[in-house]
């Protein structure tokens, strides 16, 4: 199985190299590579893999909207690499591989953020990279402390590790109060690279954090989780309220990401009761998918100067969490699992937050509203909208998929 991955990686590298001459050649090669990597699932948890592949392809396509790129062709390869890592991460149980994957996802975005239609955007790139490096360091240190500490347990160290990991994660995905880089980057960088940073690149850090935290649960998880709850809450409120008065669409979406990450991080508290973990994980993953699909659709529309009215409203409503769109189910699952572990008040704040978000999502939808034109952006929008509509069939299928997948999520650090 791993062989497939290696071949795929080689293909991507090859494609990127070839793109030196013909930019477009990497695109089909990247898609092929992605599909190859997706074979790693061996038929398990196709629900997730499928979504990731579709989202990665959307990201690839969106790059096509850019007139030119400083790293022409290689950008496809980088996205394919992130996509592959995103698929792979779920199925690996090896700590080293997990951390590697994390870095593999993080680093390509450093390059992507510079990409622009004309001259590379160095100033904003440096801002991004600075914080990403810091985030990666904190995250990896936290992960290592937790793993090491698991066998020689010390409460203080556990909590320190947990905190470092969560802080790293927050910084990486742009959760408040460490979101400070996000609005600037989202609004000043080119929308297409941002759409990649804001969508598929958010999945791996969260999954990695989840895996490590699940593997290292201890009796102190309950108190350590307060850190996650605190950051989650601050993030939701900061994101949603911050977005209310922002005018630039990029900024609004940055705050929206912050809010979404808040929902996700607050769901980490479900770790205290493994019985409800599958539902929480399903909620987190769905929320990530919603965030990814919606952001791609909207940033593409920003890049093209507007999208089809219907699509934009549909995406906005899904973000708001309107049934039966996917954004509803993700919040439903998170809320349900929170209530299950006794955090009804948190669930309540979560749904109230979705109310605060109504005005700005609708405003974004209105600002982006335009006519139906046959363009790449519209196609991406349609696919994104279809993803939101998949849950017309109540996604109990996704939950059962996660349940089967939980064996991969809980790996044993005992041997180390």
């Amino acid at each position: 199985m791993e062989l497939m991955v290696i071949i795929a990686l080689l293909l991507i590298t090859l494609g990127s190299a070839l793109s030196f001459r013909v930019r477009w050649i990497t695109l089909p090669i990247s898609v092929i590579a992605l599909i190859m990597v997706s074979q790693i699932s061996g038929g398990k948890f196709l629900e997730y893999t499928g979504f990731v592949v579709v989202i990665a392809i959307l990201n690839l396509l969106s790059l096509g909207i850019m007139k030119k790129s400083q790293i022409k062709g290689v950008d496809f390869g980088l996205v394919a690499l992130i996509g592959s890592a995103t698929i792979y991460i779920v199925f690996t149980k090896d700590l080293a591989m997990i951390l590697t994957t994390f870095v593999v996802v993080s680093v390509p975005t450093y390059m992507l953020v510079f990409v622009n239609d004309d001259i590379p955007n160095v100033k904003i790139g440096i801002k991004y990279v600075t914080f990403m490096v810091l985030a990666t360091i904190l995250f990896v240190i936290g992960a290592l402390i937790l793993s090491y500490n698991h066998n020689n347990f010390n409460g203080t160290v556990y909590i320190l590790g947990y905190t470092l990991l969560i802080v790293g994660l927050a910084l990486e995905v742009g959760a408040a109060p460490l979101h400070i880089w996000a609005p600037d980057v989202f609004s000043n960088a080119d929308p297409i690279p941002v759409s990649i940073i804001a969508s598929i690149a958010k999945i791996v850090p969260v999954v990695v954090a989840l895996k490590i935290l699940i593997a290292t649960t201890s009796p102190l998880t309950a108190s350590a989780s307060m850190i996650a709850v605190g950051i989650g809450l601050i993030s939701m409120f900061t994101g949603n309220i911050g977005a209310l008065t922002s005018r630039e669409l990029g900024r609004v979406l940055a705050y929206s990401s912050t809010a979404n990450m808040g929902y996700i991080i607050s769901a980490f508290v479900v770790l205290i009761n493994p019985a409800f973990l599958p539902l929480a994980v399903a909620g987190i993953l769905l929320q990530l998918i919603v965030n990814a699909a919606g952001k791609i659709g909207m940033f593409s529309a920003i890049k093209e100067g507007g999208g089809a009215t219907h699509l934009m409203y549909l995406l906005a409503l899904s973000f708001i969490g309107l049934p039966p769109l996917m954004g509803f189910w993700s919040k439903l699952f998170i809320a349900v699992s929170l209530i299950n572990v006794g955090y009804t008040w948190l669930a309540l704040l979560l749904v109230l937050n979705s109310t605060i978000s109504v005005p700005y999502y609708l405003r974004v939808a209105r600002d982006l509203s335009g006519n139906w034109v046959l363009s790449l952006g519209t196609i991406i929008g349609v696919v994104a909208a279809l993803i939101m509509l998949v849950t017309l069939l109540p996604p109990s299928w996704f939950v059962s998929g996660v349940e089967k997948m939980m064996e991969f999520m809980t790996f044993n650090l005992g041997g180390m």
Partner: protein
Amino acid sequence: MNPFLFFGILLIPFIAGFIGPLLNPKRATVLSFISFIIPFVTIVYALIGQSFFGLRFARLPEPLGDFYIFSDSISSAFGMVVALISAMVALYSYPYMKHRFEEMNLNVKKEFRKYVFLYQFYAASMLWLVYSGNLILLFIFLEISLVSSFLLIFMYGYGNRRWVAMLYFIWTHVAGALTFVGFLVIGFENSTLAIKDIASVGYIAWLLIFIGMIVKLPGLGPHIWLPWAHAEAPTPVSALLSPLTVGLAGYVLLRIYLIDSWFIEAYRIPIFAYAILTSVYAGFSVFRQTDYKRLLAYSTVSQMGYMLIGLTVGTFGLMGLVIQYISHAFGKSILFMTAGGIIASYHGLRDLQKMGGLHEYIPTISNAALVGFMNLGGILTVGMFGEFFILKGIVDVFGFNLWMIFAVVFVFILSGWYSFYTLKNIFYGTPKGMERPKINRLLDTPLYAIGIISIAFIFPPLATILLQGIKIVLGGVVP
């Protein structure tokens, strides 16, 4: 009656929602009308036959439970009203929205397509809501109706319509969100959300659902959103929003009550007092309104107080609640359509101070308004039973408590007062020298259809069937 056939018929409005936009506005209107009148006839037929049944179409894991739809006479009582009003408002929509599109300089044919689609979804989701057998399903229909009505206000409303639409969305979203969490808590306590399987409703769940539905109903305090939304919505939407949508909050509370009534029983007095306060407060607010549609919106708040009163006074109160919903729906849909008639005839006239003596020019609309206000006051219309059962409930539950009797009686008096006061101010008095407009027959005939039915409901056989059916479902102990 075959359940498949029954629910197949209920699907017609949704199907019409997709076919309607393909037709020209006139035909789409006819289709829309037919798509609701067929369910109406079917529901009445089911009510006569007292056929109760359920139909499961999905079994989801815990805590969601069975997704099914079912019909009993409460569903049918609500469903019947929804179908009837939707059918009549569909007819009314054609001339009105044509006028509105022209006023907004929009392409009538093109906009009517969107309108029909949204209208069908809006009305049909409310129809399905009352047949939902699972709380999540119910919530989904609640939200569909919210979005479609939101879009209708957003696109075709009056005044600062975008702001109002947003306001409407946020308030009802808060209501929906609270209720939703409440539903989930129910789901965990019972490991199912299927109405038939839920055994008990805990404190948190009840509280959340109650507060959520109070926001939607609305009670005093949150009521402030309603005048905005109902006044600025395009009138056919107001004519569904106010009569049907908000009252469905009462339906939800009724359903939860029927599952586990302890919450209402435990907090009976404060809820009752709050309901009275809402009714009286909103009743007095009516007198100061200068905008006809806002006035009607406040009257809705007052009438919703009745429903809340009904909820607190035992089995007969529940019957009062159901009938109050029916009666208010009939009356308020007529009244909003009269407001629309005036708007369409006099270029957006809504200011009460500029009205007066309108009976001279638009007698058909004026007479319809009379029937509408009769419904609100429970005079010679089905509302009479509503008031009767609520009053009986009060005696059953509280005995001869002078203050409570006085309060409820005063509420009823007040609604009669503002009804006739408003009639006097708008339609009677010295005419103000306006011209006599030519009224499209679709702007008044549907009003009379509703009016006649509302009166027919106090006489046999309709009254017999309806009340008998509700009684059986509520299991009232009737001497």
